[in-house]
């Protein structure tokens, strides 16, 4: 049971001449986290064909942005993804700063990095919780959510809101962090680094969890490149690329962290990449807090920026918890953007649904798709 061969699963098809049937999973199905549908064609229990359908949550986000002044888009960017709201806001602010051609204060950069990593941990914990329920264990779900709550509390202390933080601003961040927050953040991160081992022991030391994840949802490196998959799903297949390290934005080049890369390309390697990323995020948070402390209490954290962006284009990309998200801004020199395009990682990653679940059993579909970490808010926009 444990040493299930990879090829064995793929080659397993029914010898009987059975009728294939389509099963519509979603948009209101326990496995689809958010509103999306996976049409799966089943031959007995084995999935032979699949088709993801998205678009149930389309809100006209990009069009809506064209009617708003630049600061007003920040709260909207929060709502692109509920699990990691800070990253999209950060990305939007970076894009506008690039269009404005300004360099923000060092302190703001470090605070943003710290906030980003807090959000990355939050998002990964949300994903870990989803993995627990998708594989049929509620304990992992609740333990991960309990850990997430501490980071929510950090968000409250930092900026007064738990989920939709509205924290980065064009030209800096909303408010300064104080020593009290730094103390709480350090304590929270250190506590989390210990507590995460409990959840890891629940998953990694359990043969059922491991055998469910190992060898399912294989994605090769070439296929990954062809489909444009990014993020932990890509690093699980052996592609050594992380925007934080290879194309550093803000001050990520001064941070000391490891980009975990695994070569297996199955669900389990994707899982392990994400777990390791959480530990690395903890390190980055601690480093960023030290840097903020070193910069000093009275250093500037927010620049005054003009309300009008000069005509032109700007493009930024960043490492979202789920992959590589990009924003492309076209400005016509007014107070409102002419066009704001968002490239969401999940929108691209979900295209891997078909090669991922083909040949799996239907019981593996939630487990495999959980490793993609679906977030429909940013996918449909």
């Amino acid at each position, binding site marked *: 049971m*444990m*040493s299930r061969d990879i090829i064995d699963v793929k080659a397993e098809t029914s010898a009987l001449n059975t009728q294939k049937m389509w099963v519509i999973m979603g948009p209101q199905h326990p496995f689809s986290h958010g509103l999306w549908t996976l049409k799966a064609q089943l031959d007995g229990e084995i999935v032979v064909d699949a088709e993801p359908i998205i678009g149930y949550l389309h809100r006209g986000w990009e069009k809506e942005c064209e009617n*708003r002044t630049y*600061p*007003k*888009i*920040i*709260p*909207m960017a*929060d*709502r692109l993804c509920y699990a990691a709201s800070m990253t999209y806001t950060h990305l939007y602010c970076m894009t506008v700063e690039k269009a404005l051609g*300004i360099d923000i*204060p060092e302190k703001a950069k470090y605070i943003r990095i710290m906030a980003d990593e807090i959000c990355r941990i939050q998002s990964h914990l949300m994903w870990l919780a989803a993995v627990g329920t998708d594989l049929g264990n509620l*304990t992992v779900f609740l333990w991960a959510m*309990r850990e997430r*709550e501490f980071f929510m509390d950090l968000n*409250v*202390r930092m*900026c*007064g*809101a738990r989920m*939709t933080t*509205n924290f980065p601003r064009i*030209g*800096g961040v*909303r*408010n300064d962090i104080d020593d009290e927050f730094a103390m709480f953040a350090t304590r929270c991160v250190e506590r989390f*680094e210990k507590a995460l081992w*409990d959840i*890891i*022991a*629940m998953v*990694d*030391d*359990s*043969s*059922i969890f*491991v055998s469910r994840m190992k060898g399912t949802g294989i994605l090769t490196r070439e296929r990954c490149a062809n489909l444009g998959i990014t993020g932990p799903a890509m690093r699980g297949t052996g592609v050594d690329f992380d925007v934080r390290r290879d194309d550093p934005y803000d001050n990520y080049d001064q941070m*000391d*962290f*490891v980009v*975990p890369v*695994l070569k297996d390309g199955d669900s*389990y390697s994707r899982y*392990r990449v994400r*777990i*390791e990323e959480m*530990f*690395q995020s903890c*390190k980055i948070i601690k480093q960023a807090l030290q840097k903020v402390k070193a910069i000093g209490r*009275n*250093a*500037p*954290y*927010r*620049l*005054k*920026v*003009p*309300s009008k962006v000069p005509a032109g284009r700007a493009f930024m990309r960043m490492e979202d918890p789920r992959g590589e998200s990009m924003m492309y801004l076209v400005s016509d020199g007014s107070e409102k953007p002419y066009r704001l395009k968002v490239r969401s990682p999940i929108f691209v990653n979900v295209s891997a649904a078909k090669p991922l679940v083909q040949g799996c059993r239907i019981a593996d579909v939630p487990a495999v798709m959980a490793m993609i970490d679906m977030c429909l808010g940013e996918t449909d926009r």
Partner: protein
Amino acid sequence: MAKKEYLDKYPRSTARSLWVMTPIVKVLRLLGKTIIHRPVTVLYPYEKMWMPENYRGRPGLRFDRCIACSMCVRMCPTACIKLVETEDASGQKVMRPQVNVGRCAMCGYCAEYCPVDAMTVTPEFELAEYTREDLIYGPKRLAYDGITEKMEIHLEETLMSDIENGNPERRVSPFKTDRPVLEASKCISCKKCEKVCPVNAVKMVEHGVNEKGRPILYPEFNNDTCVCCKNCVEDCPKDALHINEVL
């Protein structure tokens, strides 16, 4: 150089016997812990989580401080704030903001961009009502007892010129620096800016007469009282005014 914490230890060897025992032991340990201590669950209606003072709940209003500059109306991303006519303590008719909390996104922009810190955030988050009409908070209802210093959000920005000049610790508010500027050739002396100014910082000053013999009035701005609310800029029918942004 940072090291990998998790990947160095896992995956454990598959040959380990009793591979389901560790989770069972972990679960039993937590069970024992929660029998002695209490679980982390907060019994919400009976006990509440600690909220910091700067928690962004519904907006609060300090009625006396408000000058009805409609800055919050302009900045609200969900357009849930509206200026309505109400009576102050002396029975005088004044304009004050009214918030439709049902649409409010709790972003805190109204408090952040309030030039006189009349709008604040409040830690009040239990806002459920029976009807949608009840969700509309009028100016009187927006008041919140016990507004503290931390509930005000000050817009403290650093000027780029200050950093270049080696004075990075100075924080200014854009309401103190930015001022409207008149492009005199476009002005038609309609006095609209004088009417809409909430702090009466605009004064129409005569600059001679035109060819028809009527007086030419140009607005003059009192820089001390102006709060940079941009009302005059927005209401100018000929776009003769713009804000001079000090960067």
